[in-house]
């Protein structure tokens, strides 16, 4: 599976990762080699119905009880921008916009 610059840009968009052009070129070279290596898994003989490993133990469930959780101020203390109540983000709707 070849990984070119365009593919790196596609994945970076999906991952919400801004990447500068020179960085993208280096990453494309690295990913191309890594993907060529992991492509070797295609050759492993597995039965058609081989199951995938998802959990080591069977699912563990518990009763859904309300319990103590983070205090409001503590939850906000590390936010880059907040007021007394909310996390603040850049404005996303222009005035008069739909």
């Amino acid at each position, binding site marked *: *599976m070849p990984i070119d610059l365009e593919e790196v840009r596609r994945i970076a968009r999906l991952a919400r990762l801004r990447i500068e052009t020179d960085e993208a070129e280096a990453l494309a070279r690295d990913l191309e080699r890594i993907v060529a290596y992991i492509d070797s898994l295609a050759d492993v003989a*597995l039965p058609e119905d081989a199951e995938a490993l998802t959990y080591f133990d069977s699912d563990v469930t518990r009763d859904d009880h309300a319990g103590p959780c983070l205090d409001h101020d503590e939850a906000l203390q590390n936010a880059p921008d907040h007021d007394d109540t909310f996390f603040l983000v850049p404005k996303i709707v222009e005035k008069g916009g739909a």
Partner: protein
Amino acid sequence: MSHLWQMTAAALASAVRAREVSALEVADAHLERALRWNDIGAFLHLEPEATRRRAREIDDQLDRREDPGPLAGVPVALKDNLCTRDMPTTCGSRMLETFVPPYDAHVVERLRQAGAVVLGKTNLDEFAMGSSTENTAFRPARNPHRPECTPGGSSGGSAAAVAAGLAPLALGSDTGGSLRQPAAFCGVVGLKPTYGLVSRYGLVAFASSLDQIGPLARSVDDAALLLEAVAGHDPRDATSSRWAVPSLRAAGSIEGLRVGLPREFLGDGLAPEVAAAVERAKSLLVEHGARAVDVSLPLTRHAIAVYYIVAPSEASSNLARYDGVRYGLRTEDETSSVDDMLAATRGEGFGREVKRRILLGTFALSSGYYDAYYGRAQRVRAAMRREMNEVFEHVDLLLTPTTPTAAFRLGEKLEDPLAMYLSDVLTVSANLCGVPALSMPCGRTADGLPIGLQWMAPRFGEETLFRAARAYESLAQAGSLWPPERAA
């Protein structure tokens, strides 16, 4: 009398409890030592006043005739991806440079209950992604045995701190070998416990189905002491096991112990000195009653490929939380939308290796590729686990080298990510299969660098694992390997 920094954790705790030495003196001895060895970059954060305050609390408890616990006054260093209330937790990343968690990780709570004194936060590869403690927004760590070499990674700071006597104990995390490889490179004991044995609550997530917190120490007994203090059920981690942890410090014989030698771990690619050291260890064990059994784990040759699909996939999902909104960095650039702010923040906040893995994981999970990569990797992983379980029907433990070579030089593999990934070849299987694995010293190379011996056990086989490791330690007199001492 030996220096306080040379003593084991068990000896320090009993001396503090017997009032032969104060917790404050113990803390000061290690703080002084940490400053003297500052240039190896073991710590990212020390807070001497908080450490001394905590040590005085332990002494006050003893004044009141209260028992502070099994780790009374023992300094412990914490990898900087373990959340500590009121102390920074940076993960070695620009993204979390100013992050101070509002809560303690489960293991940190348990350490306090056991009477331990947190010394500070140790260096690591960014978000624990790396094998050399060089992938960092801050400064690389160095091997105390040879400063031009890496201490390994990603728990390189914790291993270097224990090896140089800056702390008798440290906690790290292991996703693909991040405790065992640095333990091997620095000449100390490091354990990745059975998946689920130690709660991951408060461990900054990298790859959740592989991550496990574990101890680093200068003796097998000290590693057991620390594991006993932090292991056990925690309802805040849905994968936390309810297994009752037995005492791991009981002596026992290795007479009749069936030790499996998987040929895929002992073949080409091993440095001759490493292969010879493991061979000597095997002979010594056999001489004292263990039975060596040749075994085979053919799927091992796919372990790195499986790991470098599963781990980055889970990382790309876990690291989606760094959004510049709730905590961590936010870009100062003018941005036109929330999406734009997010992408710019993540572009600035993450280093090269983290970006590489996010992209690799996003690729493996993306539409059209999921079945061929992530789906297939999880199926091979299930087959690996089956293969490992079958081998453990015939042997009690597996014995392998921890790493194919001793510590490499700083910068040697930094520009070649695939070569760096391949250095994890002997450690990733334990994570993929969820089994416990311990690395301990088994001699040095001609250059004086430590060599690591790895034991693997079936899930929840810690008791046998520690029994065998302790027996080998005593037979080979393979205690911790101290680095060359420095002038005061």
